[in-house]
């Protein structure tokens, strides 16, 4: 016996918490967003005794997850979260599901009661693996010290491979205290999880042939292009320029193709542009790269792009043929697929039908001529600020800044009207600059996400475009900004309403504004000051530019309270359950919303909201 034991002790062994940190360091982790508690105290003790990994103390566990999402989304790295057992873990669940829906790679470490107490309803015990199972890509409960390092390495592999997502590791306290051996990350492939990244050559040939035959093509891209790295955005640009096809993007994919490029049609979907949606409706060949035919994009499914042959490129086979049956499925990583299409293009038989495509562009230009994002801003002194104008000025001024100083701007948002206006009026020219909660639609996402971005990019200008309702959902993070001197800017489009809720109530519920008005908002200027930041306010159009410029110049956290038109609605709009060609345009186009109903709206649509 003694011989075996002595052999064991010569293994690289240390307390679990130390082994955990060592594995994190080997995985390239630089920063952890977390909040301490009883079950994770051994990890905090180990963090205290090292300098390799920085810990950012948030004020709520949900914010830790969103901050890690912002960090991950803006860098392409895996974000790391550390929370305690019980309420620490349950508070993190919203963030985990948010990351799952938007395919953000995270590793979330949760404390757990000691193994011998599991199942006993111990203090701060929760069935964390049970609760997070449908909210994570995968999860682990580490029951033996010898599994610890192996599980950590595997969790990082799972989080970043295939379609990325959040992975939870539940860590009982005795595992953190007891001895654990260190093992390095394995070099052999994972035994069961090996997502296909390289596309099938036959499918690529079919896709190229179909694309070459197109008379009315469209390229529709999504978050998958962002997740495939900046090289995928480069490849996409090359493909779009080579083919001359129009390109549109989902909310999650903005920035992969430059907004200002004439080949770009803007965002598609419920609040997408007129031209993007009509192109989707009328196209004959659709190339979807890394998007998932979400219901906010497709509108009514049986009327979605009725006459087109569809090619769907996705790294997740379960996204293909889920909502929309497609003609040519291509499973693979977006970068590799785009490169394969480019490589196959010249040698493939057939030529593009250039006259047909030119005619298609002529039609597109007519649709563009409608200028669906048009709005009217009264420029007289004292006039009310239109929210669209506020975002547009923010964009113009940050673009000037970039031209002058090279300083990059990163935008995050909360959820609602302001989010859609940000997507419509802020032009993104590069990937990884746009952080928003697309799938889950989590109010309270933007401020912590901006915090995570600022940690990753200390010199960049990080702005959370917010609504006054959403921002209150994680406002406590102003305190984190102060502690770490993070000069995040919060740009609130304050219309005193939960604007999107109000808009739907106007449209669908006869103007009965049930509970969508916030009667007792805080004074955001004083609120900023109480959190050691700076508060600014613009009440009329003549004050706007100064406030934006001041906000950018101040090297501290700033809240800008931009008082905007309370009744403004977000257009264009496809009501839920309507097809793409039944869009409502804004009042500038003479079709303002009528109380209690819109064209194309059905009971089915009402249910879809």
């Amino acid at each position, binding site marked *: 016996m003694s011989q075996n034991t002595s052999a064991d002790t010569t293994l690289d062994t240390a307390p679990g918490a130390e082994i955990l940190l060592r594995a994190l360091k080997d995985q390239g982790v630089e920063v952890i967003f977390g909040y301490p508690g009883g079950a994770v105290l051994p990890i905090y003790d180990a963090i205290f005794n090292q300098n390799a990994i920085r810990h950012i103390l948030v004020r709520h566990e949900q914010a830790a997850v969103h901050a890690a999402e912002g960090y991950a989304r803006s860098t392409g790295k895996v974000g790391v979260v550390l929370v305690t057992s019980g309420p620490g873990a349950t508070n993190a669940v919203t963030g985990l599901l948010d990351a799952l829906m938007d395919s953000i790679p995270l590793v979330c470490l949760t404390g757990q009661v000691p193994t011998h107490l599991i199942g006993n309803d111990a203090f701060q015990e929760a069935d964390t*693996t049970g609760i997070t*199972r449908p909210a994570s890509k995968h999860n682990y*409960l580490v029951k033996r010290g010898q599994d610890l390092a192996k599980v950590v390495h595997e969790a990082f592999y*799972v989080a970043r491979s295939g379609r990325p997502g959040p992975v939870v590791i539940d860590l009982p306290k005795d595992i953190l205290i007891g001895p654990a051996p260190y093992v390095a990350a394995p070099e052999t492939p994972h035994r*069961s999880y090996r997502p296909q990244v390289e596309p099938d050559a036959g499918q690529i040939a079919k896709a190229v042939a179909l694309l070459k035959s197109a008379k009315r093509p469209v390229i529709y891209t999504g978050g998958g292009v962002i997740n495939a790295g900046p090289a995928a955005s480069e490849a996409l640009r090359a493909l779009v320029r080579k083919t001359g096809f129009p390109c549109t993007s989902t909310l999650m994919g903005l920035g992969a193709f430059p907004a200002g490029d004439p080949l770009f049609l803007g965002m598609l979907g419920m609040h997408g542009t007129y031209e993007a949606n009509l192109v989707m409706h009328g196209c004959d060949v659709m190339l979807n790269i890394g998007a998932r035919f979400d219901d906010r994009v497709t509108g009514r499914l049986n009327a979605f792009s009725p006459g087109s042959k569809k090619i769907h490129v996705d790294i997740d086979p*379960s996204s293909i043929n889920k909502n929309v049956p497609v003609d040519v499925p291509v499973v693979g990583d977006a970068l590799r697929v785009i490169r394969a299409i480019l490589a196959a293009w010249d040698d493939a038989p057939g030529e593009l039908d250039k006259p047909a495509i030119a005619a298609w562009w002529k039609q597109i230009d007519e649709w563009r001529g409608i200028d669906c994002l048009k709005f009217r801003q009264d420029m007289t002194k004292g006039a009310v600020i239109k929210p669209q104008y506020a975002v547009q000025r923010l964009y113009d001024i940050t673009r000037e800044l970039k031209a002058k100083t090279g300083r990059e701007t990163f935008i995050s948002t909360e959820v609602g009207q302001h989010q859609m206006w940000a997507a419509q009026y802020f032009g993104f020219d590069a990937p990884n600059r746009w952080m928003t909660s697309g799938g889950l639609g989590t109010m309270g996402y933007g401020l912590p996400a901006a915090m995570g971005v600022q940690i990753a990019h200390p010199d960049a200008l990080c702005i959370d475009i917010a609504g006054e309702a959403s921002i209150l959902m994680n406002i406590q993070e102003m305190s984190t900004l102060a502690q770490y001197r993070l000069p995040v800017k919060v740009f609130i489009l304050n219309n005193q309403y939960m604007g999107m809720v109000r808009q739907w109530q106007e449209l669908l519920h006869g103007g009965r504004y049930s509970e969508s008005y916030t009667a007792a908002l805080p004074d955001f200027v004083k609120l900023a000051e109480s959190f050691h930041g700076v508060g600014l306010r613009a009440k009329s159009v003549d004050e706007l530019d100064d406030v934006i410029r001041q906000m950018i110049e101040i090297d501290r956290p700033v809240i800008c309270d931009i008082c905007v038109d309370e009744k403004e609605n977000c257009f264009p709009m496809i009501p839920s359950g309507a097809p793409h060609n039944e869009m409502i345009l804004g009042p500038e186009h003479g079709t303002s919303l009528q109380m209690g109903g819109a064209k194309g709206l059905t009971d089915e649509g009402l249910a879809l909201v």
Partner: protein
Amino acid sequence: MTQEQRSATISVLVENEAGILARVIGLFTGRGYNIDSLTVAAVDPVRNVSRINIVTSGTDMVIEQIKAQLDRLVQVYRVADLSKQGPHVARELGLIKVVCTGAERVEALRLAEAFRARVIDATLESFVFEMTGNTDKLDAFIELMRGLGLAEVSRTGVAAIARGTATI
């Protein structure tokens, strides 16, 4: 793809780990798929592999979706749609308790013989029959016993395997 509902027998090889069954079942309930039958047992202790057999129903699109969703679970090695990949055999075992006397008792025993059910327990007032077969055969036998004092049924659910040399 047709919009017709079909039944599918899907076999899944998984890492025999805590939580995998919950994950599979959660996937079905969370996405609203049907489970008509589900069985699970370890089949390869050396490689630590278990086999889950699921009988489900849906349109072709839904069944393809179910397979893709199963296949992306981290602990899943292989997913095979036995009902699509060629001929297969599917069997389940049922234990059927019948409480009766007199003529009914004679009739129950006679039917059991016709169905090749075995008597594995008997008292003066009862039989427990053991029966192996496909689902339809068990259903038919149980239906017949209903009029003859059927008291309790315990079924294993379906185990399935491809015919011939093919393996999954």
